[in-house]
């Protein structure tokens, strides 16, 4: 029978989809993004993403600031792992200026960057848990995330927007308390991470919710410019720490975890494994740093008087130091002409800095390659046809940081 017996009046079923406005201040969107979803029942037909609700014009500000003042801007991009941004920016400056950092500085940077990666992945993974309805994991690990903050505090004085390090190294040496705190972290954190893992990894509900949702193939992921854990979850082992080692990452032994399906579960697992790898890197770096004790290489900054602030007592007693201090603080150091692209493995992907200098005191142009701005484009493709509740989880498992996305 090809025809229905009962004819419906013309136009009685015209529009079967509903429009739902998700964001920009919805509790389920972690960060300020707006999604206008077209829903057929609970299935998503299409979506339109609007971003820019926290656009702060980083790139324009950077054209007006000397190099060291831009560090504060990088803090506020991916605020879950600001030290990585700081170090990435310093590495870019050092590349432009041709500064060679001592090994110990590199290792200290590695410790801090890996701590930042852990804190970034920890927030992301626990938030995925929250969206699946498991608040416990989040509350549990947030307490131990404070340990990382305490280490930052000991090193630079700030918790979140760290502004850590200077061009050429750190502003001061790590004190004994900092090392004790790192030791304490290395001792206590693995237990916590394991327990956190036990809560989720083989949890039936969690697996059912995450497996097969928000999946992307490797080809599409590459085409969309995915990097970081999201790309690795799709099965491509691209990691800048290995492909273009910076800050002496080549001295460390670690694995790059890769997924297969690129779905939410794989992303979660990749992050989880990366935290274990980061722990191992921190341990190795910690051992290496200890070896410097008492040797001549026990330094915390490179010898670059033109860019590194001199010690305070020297400023008061030495003419030369006073001049350098004045020049640096007033931003009167000219940069060499050149253009440089440098990238580091940020918490959520390849964080790139494209710096053009025309020989002035401020960058002529500074472009940030913000990973989540680039991969959030794929969101529509990831959630099309899936349930609304899965879209929320997909959003959090992509690790979107609004501050970074909107620049």
């Amino acid at each position, binding site marked *: 029978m090809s025809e229905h017996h009962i004819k419906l009046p013309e136009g009685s079923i015209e529009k079967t989809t509903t429009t739902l406005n998700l964001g920009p201040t919805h509790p389920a969107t972690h960060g300020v993004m707006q999604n206008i979803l077209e829903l057929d029942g609970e299935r998503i037909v299409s979506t339109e993403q609007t971003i820019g609700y926290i656009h702060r014009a980083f790139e324009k500000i950077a054209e007006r600031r000397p190099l060291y003042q831009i560090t504060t801007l990088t803090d506020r991009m991916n605020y879950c792992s600001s030290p990585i941004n700081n170090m990435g920016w310093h590495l870019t400056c050092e*590349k432009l200026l041709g500064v060679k950092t001592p090994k110990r500085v590199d290792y200290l940077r590695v410790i801090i960057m890996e701590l930042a990666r852990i804190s970034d992945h920890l927030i992301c993974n626990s938030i995925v848990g929250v969206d699946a309805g498991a608040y416990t994991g989040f509350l549990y690990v947030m307490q131990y995330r404070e340990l990382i903050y305490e280490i930052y505090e000991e090193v630079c004085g700030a918790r979140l927007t760290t502004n850590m390090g200077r061009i050429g190294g750190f502003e001061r040496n790590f004190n004994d308390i900092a090392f004790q705190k790192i030791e304490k972290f290395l001792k206590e954190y693995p237990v916590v991470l394991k327990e956190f893992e036990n809560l989720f990894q083989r949890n039936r509900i969690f697996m059912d919710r995450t497996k097969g949702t928000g999946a992307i193939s490797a080809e599409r992921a590459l085409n969309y410019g995915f990097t970081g854990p999201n790309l690795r979850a799709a099965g491509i082992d691209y990691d800048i720490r290995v492909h273009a080692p910076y800050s002496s990452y080549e001295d460390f032994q670690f694995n790059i975890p890769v997924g297969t399906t690129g779905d939410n579960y794989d992303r979660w697992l990749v992050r989880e494994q990366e935290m274990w790898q980061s722990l191992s890197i921190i341990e190795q770096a910690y051992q290496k740093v200890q070896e410097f004790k008492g040797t001549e290489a026990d330094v915390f900054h490179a010898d670059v008087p033109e860019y590194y602030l001199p010690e305070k007592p020297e400023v008061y007693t030495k003419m030369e130091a006073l001049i350098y201090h004045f020049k640096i603080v007033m931003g009167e150091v000219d940069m060499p002409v050149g*253009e440089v*692209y440098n990238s580091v493995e940020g918490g959520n992907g390849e964080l790139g800095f494209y710096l053009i200098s025309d020989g002035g005191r401020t960058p*002529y*142009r500074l472009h940030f390659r913000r990973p989540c*701005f680039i991969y959030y484009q794929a969101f529509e493709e990831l959630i099309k046809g899936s349930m609304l509740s899965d879209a929320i989880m997909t959003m959090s498992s992509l690790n979107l940081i609004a501050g970074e996305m909107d620049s």
Partner: protein
Amino acid sequence: MLTNEQIKKRLTEKFPEEVTGFEEPYGMLTFEAPKELNLKVLNFLYDDEELKFRFLTTLCAVHYPEKKGRELAIVYHVHNLEDNIRLRFKVYTAISEPDIYTATGLFSAANWLERETYDFYGVNFIGHPNLKRILNVEEMDYHPMRKEYPLEDQTRIDKDDEMFGRGGESGFGTAKTEEGSGTIPESEQQHEEGKPIV
């Protein structure tokens, strides 16, 4: 392994006249091409069996007000993940006619990057599926990253000296237009000595 020399050779074989300005700042091969050819070059870099630049790292524009006729540079960073080599490719366009072809057909990642470039610099990407502002509000009637526009919020009246980028001798934050500064209130346009700021 692919080297910069090989890439350069392949490119000059294919585009003997058009591709110019080879440089290697800090080890990254950089070159430019006429703006009409931007897609052809990108396609060649993508499809060529030897080059295989199939990952768009980033895309941005740069404004050079003093280069007449080539004020806007659009810079593509592409990456060959197999051989792990990066490449920088630039096209220049006049600011009066900022039309270039879109790369969205080749790279899905280019979509928002081009919208951002349009938002910041007003580069018109021909063939882009949805070319509208992405970060700023729709009502904005200028492209803020161009050099002539001020960074600072011009409604503020409390931080009004040159250290805060408003007025002063160096003219920070003042729009250098023909008729004088359009963005600064009348009362603030006078410098201390009675001279106009711009």
